[in-house]
């Protein structure tokens, strides 16, 4: 009598054996195969008892809250937006036109047009929140590269894409920091920007030697340390009111 192989028994356990009836018949008749199958069942049933932690019912929503701010902006947002967003935008625009018309009819011209004078403190806080978020994401990219396997070549195309997004984003922060006289912030952003730009424009495949050079550069320039120090300062200066509400993008 031909016995069932261990592979056949495994497939039978998972219901993927082609001829299930023949396998069943054989197991009824063959004590040796039955014993082996019994051992297999016991072991696999025991493996099933490894517990998985219970998750809160809103786990998915919490994951979304954590990742939402880290998602790079995608083109094509408005065309894909639901119809109500277009309607809301249209209504807001129409409202503005009506308000402008009414204001023009009933109020005299003021000598100095009072365009919404932004509160400088609020401005600074918004900048700080945006910079904090930017630094956090830059740090993630650089840490991934710094912690990569030093002995194997590495495909960094996804890190390059993120670095490219961050570079285009940082210009605005740097200009604002320069404009508001925050040279310390502007200098760190400059340093981070240079590294990110080199990553974004460099090769997508890094050899272990290139990776090591990158690691040495990060260490020599103290980039990660600068990011941590600035992040910590930013966090200390951020007021709670400057934190964006859930779902709000800067």
């Amino acid at each position, binding site marked *: 009598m031909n016995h069932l192989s261990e592979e056949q028994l495994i497939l039978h356990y998972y219901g993927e054996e082609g001829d299930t009836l023949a396998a069943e018949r054989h197991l009824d008749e063959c004590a040796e195969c039955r014993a082996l199958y019994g051992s297999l069942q016991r072991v*696999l049933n*025991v*493996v099933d008892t490894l517990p998985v932690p219970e998750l809160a019912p809103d786990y998915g929503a919490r994951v979304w809250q954590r990742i939402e701010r880290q998602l790079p902006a995608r083109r*094509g*947002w408005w065309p894909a*937006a639901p119809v109500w967003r277009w309607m809301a935008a249209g209504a807001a625009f129409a409202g503005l036109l009506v308000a402008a018309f009414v204001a023009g009819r009933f109020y005299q011209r003021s000598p100095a047009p009072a365009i919404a004078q932004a509160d400088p403190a609020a401005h600074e806080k918004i900048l700080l929140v945006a910079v904090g978020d930017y630094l956090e994401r830059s740090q993630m990219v650089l840490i991934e590269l710094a912690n990569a396997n030093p002995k194997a070549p590495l495909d960094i195309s996804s890190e390059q894409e993120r670095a490219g997004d961050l570079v285009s984003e940082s210009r605005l922060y740097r200009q604002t920091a320069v404009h508001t006289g925050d040279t310390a912030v502007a200098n760190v952003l400059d340093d981070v920007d240079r590294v990110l730009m080199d990553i974004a424009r460099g090769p997508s495949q890094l050899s272990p030697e290139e990776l090591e050079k990158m690691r040495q550069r990060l260490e020599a320039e103290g980039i990660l340390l600068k990011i941590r120090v600035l992040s910590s300062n930013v966090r200390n200066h951020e007021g709670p009111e400057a934190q964006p509400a859930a779902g709000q993008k800067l």
Partner: protein
Amino acid sequence: MELTDAAIVSRARAGDADAFRVLVERHSRSLFRLAFRMTGNQQDAEDVVQDSFLRAYRQLAGFDERASFGTWMYRIAANCSLDLVRARNRRSGRHAPADEDRAEDPMAQLPSNGPTPERIALSGEIRHRVAEAMEELSPAERTAFVLRHFEGMRMEEVGRVLECQPGAAKHSVFRAVQKLRRALDPLVSVAK
């Protein structure tokens, strides 16, 4: 009627972040289960889930809409888990499985003549050995086994996630089961 993943993915690809939120909320739990079984650690599993969605979002433009979004996410999460396990092993050597609270041990709740201290101790030991035996599997064996055994995927699907032929996936599962049986059978026979 609930929209299919394919319809939601189309919207997300067009830049609708709300659509991507639906995908995150729909798939987070199953990805967590997979990541936890791959990494054996809750915090690591949560990191894997987040990282997987971030990677998926960045790679959404390259996603083949004819494929299953769930399978694609499993592939990303399996790769993230493997990266994390490799990095963890590199940093601190072998990671010892966490010693869970034995009072909630499912083994102790198996039908028996009563939860004697010996039985509870033995069940805790078995679970510890199961976790250890899982750690001994190679990355491919572990991934294939988790997908087949815990996630109930057929061998063809396992092959799709691992981007290999079904035959290769099958062999990874075989090797995993054989290793687990060799490691655990003596202990399980004692506990019978």
